[in-house]
């Protein structure tokens, strides 16, 4: 439905560089990135608000690179909603219908239907200045949907809303996407928001698309350090630090999607084929080919460019060492140093052997059952598949 081919645009010192992206018909696609990454600029390019320096834009099979915004069949919802302050809610929604060939009665019905669908029919005669953030958002959405767009472009649609309204609107957006089968491109900087709505997502930083994948892939397997830092895994350690931990306790590194793979293809191949060792055998396994690959990455990069990521919610905290452990898991002895209550979750800060700090995020129920206290000796149970290794020069998606 949306195809962006090699889009280039410079605006002052900032530039979108060779952006390529494809969004399928009816898909809910989230463009995720930190502030200043170029998300809004890319969206405005799709709207036709900038003349491109290079590349092509295709919407619904039609090349719209040089088409005026009104000919692109898009619905655009800007970050601040941009409701027309001199018009009532009803007039705002009907704004785009003036050129429609339908009769006045049909248009009025369409506006009424949209207002009812979005639960804003009681606001019909109000001006935007007298609406709450959530109400403004719904009005702007209704206005964008009124023209029956093939693509809905949403620029941080819920960033200015409180948490409960945000959840409501996210559910509403997802429902509309399924009901109307409209392709949605949603820009945001919050990965929780991405998780709640996206079929697929892309991460953009510094004007480049860095990774495209499912929300789960992006969260669990970030393509490079920038993405990893952005998705806040909790535990992101330089390889050198991690090797200290693994050297003492035997935590193994899984796939190494790094330059090391290119440098030592045989070792990397062996690494994929290898089964993960048991805790008892792990120290021995450090001499295996895959450990050699990690070691190589460490040596060639001097440990500076290779990082190990482990999401804090994937770390289990045990108060007693279990008698047996699945072969793909490792136990890591540690001392509980700090407990922080975050509402529905609790963050445990631990210090593993070698002084390496690791975070674990527990659910409230799990935390209460564990009877944890600072200074307590605990064991961190880590599944090898949850460990992700990143190098700075990892391939861009």
């Amino acid at each position, binding site marked *: 439905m949306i195809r962006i081919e090699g889009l280039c645009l410079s605006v002052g010192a900032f530039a979108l560089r060779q952006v390529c992206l494809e969004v399928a018909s009816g898909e809910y696609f989230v463009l995720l990135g930190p502030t200043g990454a170029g998300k809004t600029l890319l969206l*405005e390019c799709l709207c036709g*608000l900038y003349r491109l320096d290079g590349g092509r834009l295709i919407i619904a099979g039609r090349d719209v690179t040089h088409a005026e915004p*009104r000919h692109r069949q898009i619905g*655009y919802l800007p970050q601040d909603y*941009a409701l027309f*302050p001199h018009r009532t809610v009803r007039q705002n929604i009907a*704004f*785009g219908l003036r*050129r429609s060939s339908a009769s006045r009665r049909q248009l009025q019905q369409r506006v009424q239907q949209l207002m009812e669908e979005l639960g804003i029919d009681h606001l019909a005669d109000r001006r935007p200045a007298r609406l709450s953030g959530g109400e403004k958002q719904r009005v702007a959405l209704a206005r964008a949907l009124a023209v029956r767009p093939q693509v809905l472009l949403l620029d941080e649609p819920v960033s200015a809303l409180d948490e409960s309204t945000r959840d409501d609107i996210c559910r509403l957006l997802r429902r509309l996407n399924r009901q109307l089968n409209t392709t949605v491109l949603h820009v945001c900087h919050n990965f929780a928001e991405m998780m709640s709505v996206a079929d697929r997502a892309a991460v953009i930083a510094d004007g480049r698309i860095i990774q495209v994948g499912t929300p789960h892939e992006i969260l669990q397997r970030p393509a490079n350090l920038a993405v990893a830092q952005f998705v806040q895994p909790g535990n992101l350690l330089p390889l050198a630090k991690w090797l200290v931990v693994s050297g003492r306790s035997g935590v193994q590194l899984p796939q190494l999607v790094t330059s090391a793979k290119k440098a030592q293809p045989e070792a990397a191949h062996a690494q994929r084929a290898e089964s993960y060792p048991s805790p008892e055998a792990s120290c021995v396994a450090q001499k295996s080919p895959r450990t050699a690959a990690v070691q190589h990455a460490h040596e060639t990069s001097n440990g500076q460019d290779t990082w190990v990521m482990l999401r804090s919610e994937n770390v289990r905290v045990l108060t007693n060492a279990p008698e047996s452990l699945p072969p793909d898991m490792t136990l890591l002895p540690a001392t509980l140093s700090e407990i922080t209550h975050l509402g529905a979750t609790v963050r445990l800060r631990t210090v593993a052997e070698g002084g390496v700090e690791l975070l674990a995020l527990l659910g409230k129920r799990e935390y209460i059952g564990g009877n944890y206290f600072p200074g307590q000796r605990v064991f961190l149970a880590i599944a090898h598949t949850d460990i992700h290794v990143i190098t700075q020069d990892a391939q861009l998606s």
Partner: protein
Amino acid sequence: MAAPVEGFAGRLFAASTLAFVVLFVVGWLALFAADVNYVLADAYRRLPVGPEDGSLLRLALRGLVGMVGVLGQREILAALWLSLWTSSLSVVIGLLMAIPIGYAMSRYRFLTHPLAEAIIDLPIILPPVIVGLSLLVFFQSPAGKWIENSLVQFVFQRKGIVLCQLMVSASLGIRAAALTFDGIDPRLEHVAMTLGCTRAGAFFRVTLPLAVRGLVVAAILIWTRAFGLFGPLMVFVGAVRLRTEVLPTTIYLEQSVGRLEVALTVAIFMVLLAAMGLVIVRAVGLRGQK
């Protein structure tokens, strides 16, 4: 506005700044009061009855009646009428220029933008008489003579009054319009364009209705400036009674023949009109901006 808790030093600072406000306002009020006093005293001198017959209120009323009588003179009424319609026409033409120029200066950036901005603002800071002189010289040039002979005559004509007023006051209107458009988020137009509008459509359906308040301010600024214009008119169209005489010219002519009370009466009338304009600017233009 929040009023923080303040000690003596804070109150002293506030009092000294307010003292300057009082000094300035009182200075102007004193000037205005002197004018009113002169006119009323003149009316008092002309009273057929002795001072013991008239209370202060009656004296003031007599003075006002005298002022209205002065304003009712044929020459002054003609000057008032000429002032009113020329400055109103200047507003219409000025706005027709200010809206597109203000919009262009606000929305588009081009290579010579700073230069264009400086030229647009120039008449605001220039002594107005220079405009009159420049117009006079221009219409002595071949191009000017061609306009005079083939299109329309301006020099020493009533149409020249409008041209002169426009050249001096349009800049104020353009500046006000540009500031108004600056204050309207271009994103509103962008959204309108994604909803089926052309750029012009977005301007007429979104930006212009939102700019109405600022454009009223622009109109009042043009009108008051045009209404009070004197120097360039003396140079460009002269001061011919019942022909090119506007109210400021009347003041000049009357005081030059020693009828100071008439000159002052017209002046007071003009001050009241200007004050009314400024009050409307404050009430309409600045409402909701604080």
